[in-house]
């Protein structure tokens, strides 16, 4: 059965300047043992999406449906959602130094979640903390459990963050830029760790990142977000083989490639992400889109484009895509 099914999710905030529409009508599903990658720039709505799934976006208006293992979470009582948080859906945050509490030891922070959800004794929770720290490859876990986050290296801290997420054996892990703050070798280790844990435990993973390299490494399916909506959605191999949306192509072109030869320049996407307060009419990407710049197609500034199927499990929101299934 589908582990997580998100349908027509929208997130809005009231601000002094007006209503910010951070997420508009996003759909995706996550199956057990599979990884969904959500890619986008800052402000594309990817992190807001994850917080909305967890019910952690305070003061936001959330619409649509989030079903986790058959239970509807939007509009559910706080207590229901709280009991799922940490227990069955766990989060791994970007910067473990700020995401872990500076005043408490790593062991205490992990044990606290375990005690909350399992009613375990102090001693049992402590043992559990040491065990999961060992599981994520932290040497001398019993000693390190008694240390504070600032005494850990960046990579070890992120492992500890993952250990915290794993402590209650969740079914789904939402990882929000879990490797962004790490250098490349440590990044690879942390991703491998997540993949190994996924295989061992059949975890569903939502991997939120701006880094297509990470996506290529871990994701089974990819959702490309732009300006709060889905731009393109496809299985990972298909997306990399046949990117259809100009934004996805732009993202791929802006990646350095070893096989591209010296003469190939990296192409950056011109402009900056759209304002979510007053998004551009029509396709949110059109002001930066090279195709629109060339063709000035009025379709691009007309209605807000919706995803259309353009291939097997491949969806694209670009109105200019000649559908060739």
């Amino acid at each position, binding site marked *: 059965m589908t582990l997580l099914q998100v349908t027509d999710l929208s997130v809005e905030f009231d601000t002094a300047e007006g209503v910010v529409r951070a997420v508009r009508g996003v759909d995706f599903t996550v199956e057990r043992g599979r990884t969904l990658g959500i890619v986008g720039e800052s402000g594309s709505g990817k992190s807001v999406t994850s917080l909305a799934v*967890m019910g*952690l976006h305070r003061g936001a208006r959330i619409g649509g449906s989030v079903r986790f293992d058959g239970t509807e979470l939007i509009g559910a009582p*706080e207590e229901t959602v*709280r*009991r*799922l*948080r*940490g*227990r069955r859906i*766990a*989060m791994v*945050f970007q*910067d473990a130094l*700020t*995401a*872990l*509490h*500076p*005043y408490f030891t790593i062991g205490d922070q992990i044990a*606290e*979640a375990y005690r*909350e*959800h399992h009613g375990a004794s102090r001693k049992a929770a402590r043992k559990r903390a040491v065990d999961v720290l060992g599981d994520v490859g932290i040497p001398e876990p019993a000693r390190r459990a008694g240390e*504070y986050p*600032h005494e850990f290296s960046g990579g070890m801290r992120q492992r500890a963050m993952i250990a*915290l997420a794993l402590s209650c054996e969740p079914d789904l892990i939402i990882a929000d830029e879990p490797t962004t703050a790490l250098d490349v070798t440590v990044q690879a280790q942390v991703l491998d760790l997540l993949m190994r844990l996924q295989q061992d435990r059949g975890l569903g993973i939502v991997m939120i990142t701006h880094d297509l390299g990470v996506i290529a490494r871990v994701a089974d399916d990819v959702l490309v977000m732009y300006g709060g909506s889905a731009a393109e959605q496809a299985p990972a191999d298909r997306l990399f083989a046949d990117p259809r949306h100009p934004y996805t192509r732009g993202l791929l072109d802006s990646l350095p490639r070893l096989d591209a030869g010296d003469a190939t320049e990296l192409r950056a996407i011109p402009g900056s992400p759209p304002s979510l307060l007053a998004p551009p009419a029509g396709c949110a990407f059109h002001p930066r889109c090279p195709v629109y710049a060339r063709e000035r197609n009025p379709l691009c500034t007309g209605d807000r484009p919706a995803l259309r199927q353009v291939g097997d499990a491949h969806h694209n929101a670009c109105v200019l895509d000649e559908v060739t299934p």
Partner: protein
Amino acid sequence: MIGYLLRRLLAMAVTLLVICALTFAIFYLLPSDPAAQFCGKDCSAERIELVRQQLGLNDPLVVQFGRYVVGIFAGQTLGSGPYAVRCDFPCFGYSFQSAQPVWDLMMDRLPTSASLAVGAAVLWLLLGVSAGVLAALRRGTWVDRTVMVTTIGLSALPVYFIAMILLYLVVTVTGLLPYPRYIAFGEDPGGWLANLIMPWTTLAVMYAALYARMTRNSVIETLAEPYVRTARAKGLPERRVVGKHGLRPALTPVATMLGMDLGGLLAGALITESLFSLPGVGKLFADSLNKADQPVIMGITLLASFFIVSSNLVVDLVYAWIDPRARLA
């Protein structure tokens, strides 16, 4: 840790010595002549000169300063012959006007100031911190706005104004309490309490307002920290998220400020003590200023510096105890 403590204590000693030297220089360059005070009224110029010699006031400043510092630790005898006065350890000078060592004068008054400062601090912490936390948790609601408007108003009121209003309402209009005078706690605890309520309130009002505003901002800031979000993501009940993960770090700066404020107030709340005629160190200071009783002024200045410098150290140690990042390996 021991090494750190020793270094800090040494630095503290140096700071106090510098403050001591500066105050000494300022006071002994002032026109008022200790010899004339010692000698009393109707004293001839020759006699004053004799006293100057006996007190060593004609010695170079450095020599006099050295004598003062040594006196603090070893005591000293001022003057010689029939006029000699003995000032025992710790000798912070001798008030010729009161015919008492400065230390004794200060120690007589210290319990009053300490009662005032500590009692007021308890009051302003209870009021200020709870109002601040409440405002932060109800941010943007009428509770928050009421707290903010009230605290702006209260922090703008001068202490003497608050004292006047209190005295008028409590003593004159309603007669709930008698006009305050200091009663030692050991003498009559009930009387001690009744007489300190108004001074405490007066002093606490301004601080409570400041603390409420600071607490509110600190709590709001802390609750937006990623580690508070992590606590929620762990599935902890909101009570624990706020109480354990939010409030502890939010109240750390409050503890720091409390240390500083208390350190400053121990050496006397000058205005409040004067207004309520409380015989504290602050009142002593005000009286000594009026009488130009230099040794006392200087002694109190040093006492105040000592409290402030040592509360700094205490604050740093407490901080390290609360926040593991501030601990030294």
